[in-house]
């Protein structure tokens, strides 16, 4: 395999020798998968103040359980409190943040000083990480937040690798950057399309992804088009009488042809898997994966791959190679085309999605390994999606378990042969070709 290009930018991490892999966890079960599959930290949403009001967010009880589970792996739990608050949200912030602290949460991710200040005062054990919603792109702004006592800033997704290097040079602080997942095509927080189209407040978790809707682009054809007037025209206007009143129904010149795909603002998803050395060497402290709404299969697959890539590089940077199977794995979880965002240059026409989207992930999470008997080679599988004898399946797990086989004879817990595993969570026994472990996953290509 061809040697990787040497990373161009070198920077130092603030507290960690090895970058943290930070994964999304939409609920307690996803948290467990994320941690088991290698996340050093997970971020979740609580019942309030988060930007995913549609997710099945955590209760305090679930948070405690999540924190305890993560602690066994040495992993931390962060809570996104990343809304821009309105007056009515202010009361209650203090109580909420104290409860997070009591639940053992390590940090909140916040954008609004209304929340940040309360955390500093009322829940001092909670670290405050500045959310990407603040669109922080420059070192002086980063320094401002450091001086405010924040140990970490999540940069705006518009920051390039070179800019991160400069920030690292000037400010000794943890830098967290998104490395994988869906992206706002706007500056995060600077979009109220949802508010205008559906009266749903995007900055309080109501985003309905209007940027991915279909639009047509026109040019205003009228001569007295409202808008910009050149300096010369202004001088003319001063001498001339007022322009004629607007005429309704004047020309709209379409800037598309009937066969064209409609205009849309939807971005391809971010994937930095092929650039792990650059991310590590520039000194990014935390590698963040997007997707609190994503499936267990997605979270486990993506975390698993990045875990292996990061560990492999850290163990031996000189001889690091990007394994083709990692890319294959990532593609099994991808539900949109991928790109590298702003890390290397400003996205252009190849970085947006104009074609009708095929959102379907090609694979299903078919089953979860609960037990494995080394002597017989029989595994007990908890059903997560329909499968039956003859189906081509893959097993994968943390630390690189991976093999393919066909489903052979399957039987229920009483040894009764089954023609298919039909029922969610039903326990099924089957022979596997290689050893598996508790919490390894079984996936199946969709038909």
């Amino acid at each position, binding site marked *: 395999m061809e040697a990787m290009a040497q990373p161009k930018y070198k920077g130092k991490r603030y507290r960690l020798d090895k970058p943290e892999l930070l994964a999304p966890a939409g609920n307690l079960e996803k948290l467990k998968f994320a941690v088991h599959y290698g996340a050093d930290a997970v971020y979740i949403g609580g019942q309030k103040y988060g930007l995913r009001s549609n997710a099945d967010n955590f209760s305090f009880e679930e948070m405690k359980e999540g924190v305890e589970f993560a602690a066994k792996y040495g992993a931390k739990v962060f809570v996104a409190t990343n809304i821009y608050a309105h007056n009515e949200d202010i009361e209650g912030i203090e109580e909420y943040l104290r409860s997070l602290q009591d639940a053992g949460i390590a940090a909140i991710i916040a954008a609004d000083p209304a929340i940040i200040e309360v955390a500093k005062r009322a829940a001092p054990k909670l670290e405050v990480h500045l959310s990407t919603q603040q669109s922080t792109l420059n*070192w002086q702004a980063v320094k401002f937040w450091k001086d405010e006592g924040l140990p970490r800033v999540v940069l705006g997704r518009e920051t390039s690798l070179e800019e991160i290097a400069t920030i690292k040079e000037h400010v000794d602080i943890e830098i967290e950057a998104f490395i994988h997942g869906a992206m706002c095509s706007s500056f995060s927080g600077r979009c109220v399309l949802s508010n205008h189209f559906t009266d749903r407040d995007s900055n309080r978790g109501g985003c309905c992804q209007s940027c991915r809707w279909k639009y047509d682009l026109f040019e205003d054809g009228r001569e007295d088009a409202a808008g910009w007037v050149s300096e010369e025209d202004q001088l003319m206007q001063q001498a001339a009488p007022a322009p004629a009143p607007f005429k309704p129904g004047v020309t709209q010149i379409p800037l598309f042809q009937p066969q064209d795909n409609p205009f849309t603002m939807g971005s391809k998803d971010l994937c930095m898997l092929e650039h792990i050395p650059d991310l590590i060497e520039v000194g990014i402290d935390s590698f963040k994966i997007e997707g609190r709404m994503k499936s267990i299969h997605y979270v486990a697959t993506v975390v698993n791959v990045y875990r292996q890539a990061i560990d492999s590089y850290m163990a031996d940077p000189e001889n690091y190679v990007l394994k083709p199977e990692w890319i294959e794995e990532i593609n099994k979880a991808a539900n949109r085309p991928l790109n590298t965002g702003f890390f290397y240059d400003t996205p252009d*026409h190849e970085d947006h999605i104009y074609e009708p989207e095929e959102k379907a992930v090609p694979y299903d999470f078919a089953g979860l390994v609960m037990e494995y008997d080394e002597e017989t080679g029989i595994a007990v599988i908890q059903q997560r999606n329909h499968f039956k004898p003859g189906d081509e399946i893959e097993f994968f797990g943390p630390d690189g378990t991976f093999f393919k086989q066909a489903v052979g004879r399957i039987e229920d817990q009483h040894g009764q042969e089954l023609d298919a595993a039909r029922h969610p969570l039903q326990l099924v026994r089957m022979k596997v070709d290689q050893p598996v472990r508790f919490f390894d996953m079984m996936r199946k290509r969709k038909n």
Partner: protein
Amino acid sequence: MSNKPELLAAAGSTAEVRAYLDAGANAVVVGEDRFGMRLPGSMTLEEIREAAELTHSRGSSIYVCVNNLMTNELSNDLPDYIRSLGEIGIDAVEFNDPSVLTAVKEHAPKVKLHWNAEMTATNYSTANYWGNKGASRVILARELNMDEVTEMKPRLELEAQVQIHGMTNIYHSKRRLVKSYMAHQGRPVEEGNLGKERGLFLIEAERQDEKYPIYEDMNGTHIMSSEDICILEDLHLLMAAGVDSFKVETLLKPRHYNEIVLRTYRKAIDTYAADPSSYAFQEEWLDAIREVQDPERELSFGFFYKEQVY
């Protein structure tokens, strides 16, 4: 804080500054498009100096919009720019990025700071936070409703500015979305041909009556609202609440239109200030605006009376 609220207009040239002061504005906001965004025109330091002299000779105020989301490169250029603005003697800088706040405090300490975070300036606590950091005014989000604005006002430790007329920005991306789309279609367009002057707009598939202006400049792609805020009928509620500054957004409007709008609000403000108890809204004021209003753009109360969910 005077009793009479300020009437503020965005201006893109010295000629516009003059015209809008003549029409009744007693404050203007200008800027240069490297540092400020969504300006009706980009003005050099020399032009800003000229505009400042003119504005101050009328006893009015001039603010400079420096609301860009700064890159390292831009933030390096801030000290010189801010120092020059301080030397010119402008009255305030509108900022969003903390790097601008730091630069103003260091390099032009006499210049006031107006916190302008557009859609993210949504509560009194955060406004007061920036007040403690040195801001003397908050420019409130256009997505707030009337109750939120009026309830907020007594809890604010700094001045409040509210946009009362014109369009608002509803989406800002660093990406060149129109340029990318045209390239995707195989009909690439030359650089600089997708700006404000082009009159581009979007129509969403299920909202055929709504035209959303879109344009690109060095700061990326901007999409604007399909309606124009017009709070004229209920301006007295904001005046009674003690809002300190009323902004007329002049962006993407002909000067003649803006002049009529400013004259109308001037009349309403003066009438109210003369005797709040006998103040009554006059339908003919609104008629004057309706007459020049683009019929394809609705005059609306924006979010003042909308219920938003999430």
